[in-house]
């Protein structure tokens, strides 16, 4: 019998009072993969992850982690799973390496601390109390705590939030290395780039549902290879997207982003670009920028939901 998927979520429903945080979400995580759950704040990512971690009991649907029920089989599952919370998770007065050593002491075969301290750049702050660590240092310590017990499966919630770009890349390298050594990783993120660079499989999530799934390449190729992005100096007059869509014809899709910008997807090429340019002149809008580039997951998300991934636009965090 083949091993069950690392994670299998079927029709998960989670509510907080009158708010439905997760609304019939289904996803699967293959063993050995890095799988990203990508969506804006408030999409239900953290709630889904915490249900997989056994913190919450599903109100509807089922969750299986390594073939087990994360609530009922919690004790059997916990040593096999590494968890990185979105924030906190340490005493305020504990020193960074002291905390890591403590978590290591709870496991049977922990990784050598020196290795993690070096790889995650924690040496510089090893004796600093947790409350005085920067946000990025707290994140790195959180990741170290999640991997130190040599888990089979890693749940990381917004692993690189608050990290500078160089440290973010170091973190991605570590996650890739873990994957190479056989660790499955499930990560939530609202950074399109993180999902695109790191994940084998991306589940785009919005309003508590998966709106699209696939490899980053499959998702971005699915709607044509390129994207044209138009940003204008004054807000668009009413009816602008419809007018542009009419000018371009049925093969392309016009997606309004906000009152200053829109995106054109589909078989966009140089001739499409000239049509858009001509339309600007005819319609009387002045481009701030008009660019053509490869399609991103951000564009896919916009196409699927009509919303952007950017934080601050997606309501409160779940």
């Amino acid at each position, binding site marked *: 019998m083949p091993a069950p998927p690392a994670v299998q979520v079927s029709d998960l429903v989670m509510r907080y009072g009158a708010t439905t945080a997760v609304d019939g979400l289904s996803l699967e995580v293959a063993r050995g993969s890095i799988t990203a759950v990508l969506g804006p704040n408030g999409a239900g990512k953290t709630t889904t992850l915490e249900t997989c971690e056994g913190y919450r009991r599903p109100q509807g649907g089922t969750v299986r982690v390594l073939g087990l029920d994360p609530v009922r089989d919690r004790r059997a599952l916990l040593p096999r799973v590494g968890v990185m919370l979105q924030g*906190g998770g*340490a*005493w*305020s007065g504990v020193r960074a390496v002291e905390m890591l050593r403590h978590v290591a002491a709870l496991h049977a075969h922990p990784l050598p601390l020196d290795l993690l301290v070096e790889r995650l750049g924690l040496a510089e702050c090893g004796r600093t109390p947790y409350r005085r660590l920067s946000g990025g240092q707290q994140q790195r310590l959180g990741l170290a705590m999640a991997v130190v017990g*040599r888990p089979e499966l890693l749940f990381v919630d917004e692993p690189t939030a608050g990290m500078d770009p160089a440290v973010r890349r170091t973190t991605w390298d570590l996650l890739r290395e873990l994957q190479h050594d056989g660790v499955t990783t499930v990560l939530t993120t609202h950074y399109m780039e993180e999902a695109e660079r790191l994940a084998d499989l991306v589940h785009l999530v919005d309003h508590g549902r998966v709106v699209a799934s696939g490899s980053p390449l499959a998702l971005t190729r699915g709607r044509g290879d390129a994207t044209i992005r138009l940003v204008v100096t004054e807000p668009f007059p009413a009816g602008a997207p419809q007018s542009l869509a009419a000018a371009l014809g049925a093969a392309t899709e016009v997606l309004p982003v906000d009152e200053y910008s829109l995106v054109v997807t589909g078989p966009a090429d140089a001739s499409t670009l000239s049509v858009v340019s001509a339309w600007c002149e005819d319609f009387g809008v002045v481009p701030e920028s008009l660019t053509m580039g490869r399609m991103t997951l951000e564009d896919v998300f916009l196409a699927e939901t009509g919303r952007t991934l950017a934080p601050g636009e997606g309501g409160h965090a779940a």
Partner: protein
Amino acid sequence: MTQQDTARTGADGTFAPRPGAAPYAAMVRAQASMETRLLLRNGEQLLIAVVIPVIALVGGVVAAGRLGIDLDGADPVDALTPGVLALAVMSTAFTSLAIATGFERRYGLLKRLGASPLPRSGLLLGKVGGLLVVQAVQVVVVGAVALALGWSPDPLGLLLAVPCALLGTAAFAGLGLTLAGTLRAEATLAVANLVYLLLLAGGAVVLPRSSYGAASEVLALLPSAALGDALRAALLDGTLAVLPLVVLAVWAALGASLASRFFRWE
């Protein structure tokens, strides 16, 4: 992953999964040692654990001598030391535990440990271990100061005092955890300190109940007075006082059931 990536990261099986929980006893030991270090690291915790009881003892003995206060006819240091030990037990098992646990909840530590192999029973045992180590430090310090002041406890009473102190610890710890598991951390801090001060002043913990006049009978039902009475009976007279121990047992049962029922981990 491309070949180039593999070459760059140099992955070689270092991170190959090898999950497993440490043996239960090792986890509890690690947790207790951590709890102890953190309890003793805080200045304000040390103040409440050691400095205030010592001041209460020295101040009480000096004041009783100067003012000629009668403490049931006993030598002031003999009469006051059991109560000061009771105060020390109460400060750690109730105030320190409540405050520390309240902030552990607030900082997501309890949630994080909830995802570690350490079971809740192990966490609780670790906390108890930390408490007992801190209390041992308190007893040594307070006892040394008392002996320097001429304390002559009943030898058998020193043994009898141990179960009294443990029962008192259980009673106060249950109440402290109930507080920490239901209120916000700041509210826990405020309430735990306030209750400590109120019991210190009016709870018949340091001073014997006879000093409180007509309130004496009612005070007997407080855990603070019960612990003070039990330790005084043991250390002054070498006897086990049954009624105070029953009172402590009832508080311990109440505290445990409240904590297990209402404690919220997040």
